[in-house]
């Protein structure tokens, strides 16, 4: 079973306590944006074979949203971090590079 540590309350929460919220760090688009931008925002989800960044909510705990870095192939968890950021923090990225060299993600050059 997947367990993630909630970065707010520190609890090692198992999957039944959490709700998955899909891809993290999505660039949002508002009124006046192009059809392509809306398609991107609404449907063109990143579906990586490997490293992924996701939103999770500690629904049956403190109730807060946070982010997790996870591997979709090995189910390894690289770490969790607070939601108030537009990209994964440097320490998480460094940790991922240590175990999965050469990883890429669409919003990171």
């Amino acid at each position: 079973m997947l367990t993630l540590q909630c970065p707010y309350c520190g609890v090692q929460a198992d999957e039944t306590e959490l709700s998955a919220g899909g891809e993290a760090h999505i660039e949002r688009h508002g009124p006046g944006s192009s059809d392509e931008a809306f398609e991107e925002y609404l449907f063109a989800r990143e579906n990586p074979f490997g490293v992924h960044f996701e939103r999770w909510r500690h629904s049956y705990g403190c109730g807060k949203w946070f982010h997790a870095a996870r591997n979709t192939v090995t189910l390894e968890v690289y770490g969790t971090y607070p939601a108030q950021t537009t990209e994964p923090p440097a320490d998480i990225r460094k940790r991922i590079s240590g175990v999965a060299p050469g990883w890429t993600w669409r919003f990171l050059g």
Partner: protein
Amino acid sequence: MKRYSAFAIAREALRFHSGWERAWKSPEPRRRYEVVIIGAGGHGLATAYYLGKNFGITNVAVIEKGWLGGGNTGRNTTIIRSNYLQDPSAAIYEKSRSLYETLSQDLNYNVMFSPRGVMMLAQTQHEIRGYQRTAHANALQGVDTRFISAREVKELCPIMNIDGPRYPVLGALWQPRGGTARHDAVAWGYARACSDMGMDIIQKCEVTGIRQEEGQVRGVETSKGPIDCSKLGIVVAGHSGRLADMAGFRLPLETVALQALVSEPIKPCMDVVVMANTVHGYMSQSDKGEMVIGGGTDSFNSYTQRGSFHHIEETVRALVETFPMISRLKMLRQWGGIVDVTGDRSPIISKTPLQGCFINCGWGTGGFKAIPGSGWAMAELMAAGQSTLAEEFSLDRFRVGKFIDESVAAGVAH
């Protein structure tokens, strides 16, 4: 190919079964084919079959990374139905269901299609209204379904407890010509027929790259060397995103794990398929006597062919209320597959930004029932450049907002 028949069994019985031949050949890939299909699951093989049968295109290779029918084709709960709400879905799923009716004769291979009837239980007031609406829509679409009362449900399936305290059964959407089929046999039957038409089915051959020149597909790089082709079909379910990545475009898909399980075999007790979408569970009895049970998908992206254990617990717990007799059953096996889910829960059968490259994906949790219809439409699209059945399922519907919203009918159980 020697035909299978009662006479053939008698003939072989008299000579110690020494005359059976392999159902399909296992050739090494040639350097060039007119059409290459990636993925030898049900949908890929059906595409190849109808390319040959309906359009006379037999210079075809079907390439498979693992073994034939080893992905979701061999991992589903074999339910066949066509009681969808939207017109394009009803059209393609009903085409598929009707092809299943005669598939054993077409392929000369017994796919054990059993039109035993599928009921989708209404356990809330919302579901009653939803299924009545679907029944009316189906009447207009020419799909034979009707809404039945709780009493009729009990008559059709006596082992069901319709007075459950949490989720009483209030009625059901009943499709008498829905049912099940032998999932492996569908893949094997198509493979045998394709091989007989001279197509090459190449197993244990992984595609590592897609070659293109000036926006036109030229061929694929594989673990068994490069193969040239004029047209390429990508039919790889959960791994569609990876192949699209190689071809240079993106898909509006997410890959998640879906599980199923079977009980120990018991005597025949249930001769219909029951789906209970409110509680995320569905069940039928196989010819061997096992109760085949399926549930919901995991909520997060995963490429592992296994799911979270608590989903099994939730599914079984919910079904026990409706089927109290299964509470003492031992479960024999559990397995998972990875399914590709789109935003509107409808599939994609489409041309792609790469000329000559076509994609058939996004069947999510309900691809098995669609195998013949999907292959039929995909073959038409690849051979003729357009297909009435596939028209609405194009990739650009997400940009123009022309969704085929089946999230009510298809988002949970299949």
